[in-house]
């Protein structure tokens, strides 16, 4: 299973690599990281259909998570991958907007990795 994580915070890479160290070691899950919406689209251009799940932050400078979601779900990939949105607010407005745009699930910051792992098991 390949997951693309999109966040403007660089430390997110270390955090995911640490929290999924067992899964990465066992080859169960593979991670790719992008630090902006634009980066993410560039990655998807080069690795079409590789990523099964995309985890994206909504608040990012430049292209926002919502725009990225819109691009992925409506313009980019057929069939589109599962997209899970991470937001610092978890507010209704962003939530509804993301849901309309086709987000499959939501996580709030600070990210609960146990919850995330449960969700991943269901997708798997």
């Amino acid at each position, binding site marked *: 299973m390949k997951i693309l994580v999109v966040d403007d*915070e660089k*430390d997110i890479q*270390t*955090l995911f690599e*640490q*929290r999924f160290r067992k899964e990465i070691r066992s080859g169960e899950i593979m991670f790719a990281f992008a630090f902006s919406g634009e980066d993410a689209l560039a990655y998807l251009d080069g690795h079409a259909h590789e990523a099964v799940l995309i985890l994206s932050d909504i*608040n990012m*400078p*430049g*292209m*926002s998570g919502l*725009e990225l979601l819109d691009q992925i779900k409506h313009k980019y990939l057929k069939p589109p991958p599962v997209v899970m949105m991470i937001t*610092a*607010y978890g507010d209704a*407005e*962003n939530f509804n*907007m993301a849901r309309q745009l086709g987000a499959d699930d939501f996580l709030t*910051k*600070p*990210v609960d*990795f146990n919850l995330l792992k449960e969700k991943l098991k269901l997708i798997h």
Partner: protein
Amino acid sequence: MDVECILAIIIISYLRRILKKHAYDARVDKLLIAGMAISIALLVVSAALPRAKTLFRWLTHAFMLVLVYYSLTIPVFRAAKSLLYAILPLVLVTLIEDIVKIISLSFYNEWNNYFQAAQLFAFIWMFAMWFITKRQRTALEMERLKALEKEKEYTITASLKAALEVQVAERTVALTRQKDELEQTITELKSTQAQLVQSEKMASLGELTAGIAHEIQNPLNFVNNFSEVNTELIAEMKEALGKGDIEEAKIIAEDISANEQKINHHGKRADAIVKGMLQHSRSSGGQKEPTDINALADEYLRLAYHGLRAKDKSFNATMKTDFDETIGKINVIPQDMGRVILNLITNAFYVVAEKKKPLTPEGKLNPFFKDYVPTVTVGTKKAGNKILITVRDNGSGIPPQVLDKIFQPFFTTKPTGQGTGLGLSMSYDIVTKSHGGELKVATKENEGTVFTIQLPLQP
């Protein structure tokens, strides 16, 4: 003698006129009336009784002498002096003539021509004196009139002056009242201004709040998760040690250590955000201290961005930083300089957001809408003995007719209720007055604006 009597009448009536004009004295006037009666009586009687002519001649002489002498001794008749001197030779000549006639008639007859001539000269003298006196009197009268005129003018001036004094007093009262009212107004304005400055701070704090919420979630995310990871890692390390796998335990310890650093870093970041927020709302009067301008600018760039983003979900812009890492720490009042940088950044985001809107404020289609990438760049640079902090946007630029007003208090181009108009004027004061620097602006229509804060390196 007839002539003498007529002269006496003329003199007396003249003297009476003087008396009435200058200093009326009933006693003197009575004497003059008596003198007048005597001279008329002498005139009438000498004409009626030709035989007693000689007697009356002598009476007339005596009367004339008394009259002239008397007139000359009284101070009131000083004005008549010239007239008296005019007739004196005639009186004396006739008197001497008569004396000579009595002493020696033959001598008189022999020298008759000379007496005639003396009499003639006395007459000429009299008329000449009379003529000169009259001229002098006319001149004096003119002078007197002039003096009167002057006095009148003086009176008018004095009354005008008095009226003016009254007016001045009235005006002074009115002006004093106005001054008091103005002072009152100024006091009120000052307190209003202080309130506005405070509300400006609060408004920008409000803009920050959402940014702060977002910005604090990120470090907390790392702090929480890295510490949980470390708990797991410590368990794994114990397990490895139990198995006797020292190498594995060492690797895990390295990871724990690295995570610990991350926890520490993000904890400090959250701390700085909260401190920055508190500093921002604190009233001014802070001290200058060595400050990392790059960190300050970076923090406020993020806070401003997320703050705007939280208010306007459709807002989006590219943030760029161009920091000179060699500038070191600069001596500034951190909360004040932070406020300036935040203000410039907020303005920059505002203008790029405006330019990105599909419609112009006039309701026309925005020609930039499609291909426009709103971008705000914050940079620092060392230039000689100065530090430059630049905030650049690629917005619509500042129209020339507005450019020289932007640092004036209460000037704003934002719609009513959206801007206090104090941001740039406060920023200008902070940079120039508290830091001895300069705040400059360069703008190009449709291409963007750069605000540059120049700070001296060694204040």
